[in-house]
């Protein structure tokens, strides 16, 4: 029999036949490895999870016309949007603002893609329903109150283009007036300036103004980190000259701050758990070494060197670390899944790399924790511990 075979035979015999003590150590390592694996999974998944959560706070990137450009064309918008990874785009909402008349009184109408607006501004509360086809409009709460309209009412919007150079001082009535009737499908309640707007579709705006619509602004909701967003913005600014991509700092900075704090918290908890695991393993190993002083003395009496005594205990510890790490990496996934479902209400992404990582970390942590107590094993004096009387 080879020496290595006997070494493993002794280690496995010690682990299997001294179950009660070893189970405590194994449990400590397993719990540590589970939390380590789970928290590292969450650590890497938090940006994705939180990114999804932050998307409910509205757009985090906007396109504005650059320089002398009067507006953003649909073609340029498409070109700019193509720079961003399609998977990261939660919604795109172009906006064209025009002043329209309701009962001869001016009101701002925002033309947009309704599905895009719904995606970029999920926090908007619509009393009624979002417009689904042309001829339907969304009315801001203040406008609805001012004009006494509610869901289902008809509302006439007029548009009159003002001639350049003609003063309205003497005659306020605009020329070339065009009027269309719309059905109110919903009243918009945001708590913000949107309550003073009327939202209509881009097609309706084109019909009303009888002009090809270019956009005054495009709002985007992109699921990405601040660095990635900056990168996208730079690429767009370099490649599409007619528009300027900017980040909505209020949103992106809050997101980054919260993410950094959350990741730091996870990191600290992970370190604390690892330290606690080390303390637990070290305490158990100290007890194991104390309990087995006679065995150590006997081994030394039989001719074992200090190195082989340390090697035997380290072997036991590292095998426990390996088993605990393997079990912990599997349990860690379920732990992360549980946390993710309860906190973020979504499923975790399985990281296969975490299995070897947890395994190596568990073995390393156990080895470090074993070092001190195991070194004391080498100090055992066989003559003292084997004394018969």
């Amino acid at each position, binding site marked *: *029999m*080879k*020496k290595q*075979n*006997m*070494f493993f*035979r*002794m280690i496995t*015999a*010690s682990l299997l*036949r*001294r179950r009660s003590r070893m189970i405590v150590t194994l449990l400590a390592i397993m719990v540590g490895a589970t939390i380590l694996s789970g928290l590292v999974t969450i650590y890497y998944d938090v940006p994705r999870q939180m990114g999804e959560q932050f998307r409910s706070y509205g757009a985090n990137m906007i396109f504005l016309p650059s320089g002398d450009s009067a507006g953003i064309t649909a073609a340029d918008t498409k070109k700019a949007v193509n720079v961003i990874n399609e998977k990261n785009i939660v919604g795109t909402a172009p906006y064209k603002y025009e002043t329209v008349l309701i009962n001869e009184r001016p009101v701002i109408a925002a033309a947009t893609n309704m599905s895009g607006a719904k995606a970029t501004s999920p926090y908007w509360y619509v009393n009624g329903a979002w417009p689904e086809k042309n001829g339907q409009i969304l009315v801001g709460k203040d406008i609805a109150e001012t004009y006494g309209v509610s869901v289902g009412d008809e509302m006439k919007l007029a548009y009159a283009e003002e001639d350049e150079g003609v003063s309205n001082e003497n005659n306020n009535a605009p020329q070339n007036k065009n009027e269309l009737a719309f059905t109110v499908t919903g009243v918009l309640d945001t708590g913000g300036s949107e309550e003073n707007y009327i939202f209509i579709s881009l097609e309706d705006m084109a019909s009303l103004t009888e002009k090809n619509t270019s956009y005054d602004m495009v709002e985007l909701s992109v699921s990405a980190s601040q660095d990635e967003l900056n990168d996208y913005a730079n690429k767009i600014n370099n490649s599409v000259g007619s528009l300027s991509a900017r980040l909505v700092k209020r949103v992106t900075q809050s997101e980054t701050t919260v993410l950094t704090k959350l990741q730091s918290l996870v990191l600290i908890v992970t370190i604390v758990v690892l330290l606690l695991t080390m303390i637990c393993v070290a305490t158990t190993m100290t007890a194991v070494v104390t309990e087995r002083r*006679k*065995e150590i*003395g*006997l*081994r*030394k*009496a*039989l*001719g*074992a*060197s200090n190195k*082989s005594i340390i090697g035997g205990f380290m072997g036991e510890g590292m095998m426990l670390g390996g088993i605990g790490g393997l079990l912990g990496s599997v349990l860690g996934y379920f732990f992360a899944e549980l946390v993710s479902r309860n906190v973020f209400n979504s499923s975790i992404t399985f990281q296969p790399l975490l299995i070897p990582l947890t395994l190596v970390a568990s073995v390393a942590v156990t080895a470090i924790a074993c070092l001190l107590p195991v070194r004391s094993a080498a100090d055992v*004096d*066989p*003559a003292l511990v*084997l*004394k*018969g*009387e």
Partner: protein
Amino acid sequence: MSLLEIKGVSKIYGSLKALDNVSLTVDTGEWVAIMGPSGSGKSTMMNIIGCMDKASLGEVLLDDVDISKVSSKKLTEIRRDKIGLIFQQFHLVNYLTAVENVMLAQYYHSMPDEKEALEALERVGLADRAKHLPSQLSGGEQQRVCIARALINHPEIILADEPTGNLDEANENIVLDLFRQLHNEGTTLIVVTHDPEVAEVAQRTIILDHGKLVKEVMNENFNSQNAAANNSGSQENGISDSGSKKSAETTEENPEAKKEKAEDNGRKADAMKARGKTRKGSKSKK
């Protein structure tokens, strides 16, 4: 030919002299008992001879090496290669089976060999208990595993500290019979004991008191006792050992020759040397 020479050895702990200027010579193949009351220095002497402690003063020559002056590492090597230890409390590793306990000594000495370990257990009559844990063995059986472990590496000298201290009479006889076999094969035996009956079966008894060697008693009847025991011992005790059987057969066929062999420690030394060569050969082969 002396295997062990102790010259003016003292062991001093502060103001206490555990051993006080002790001198002793043990020949190869000799069976020596060390007796004395508690605190007389028996265990200290055992630890010094067993390379588990060093003398404060004096020389301890084991196989012509002064073990009182070598490093701890060297002491470990000497202990591993030349000494077999038997303890009163057996000191078996409780999670290893009987055969694994025997293999443990091989593991630290050279190469573990399960077949050889099983043969050693067979020799002490425990072949059928090889896969049992110490907790599943009686005290006598545990002591026999301990003996199998001590002899597995064919040591020059076997040191037994109160080997029958925890045994009943029947098991005591089994153990003493095993010692007789080892002695007949030329193994040097040093047995520390409180029990005069155990001391009486040795060739020579050393008596210690307050760290001093106060008396040496030669067992005049050793040879006749040994021969008589060889005639009945192992068969009565049921030890299924081929070596033991051979001794019994030799005694039956040629008692005179057997008697001569028991008396002549020099011839045992030759036998030991030959055995040592065989062992070294098999070790280097491994």
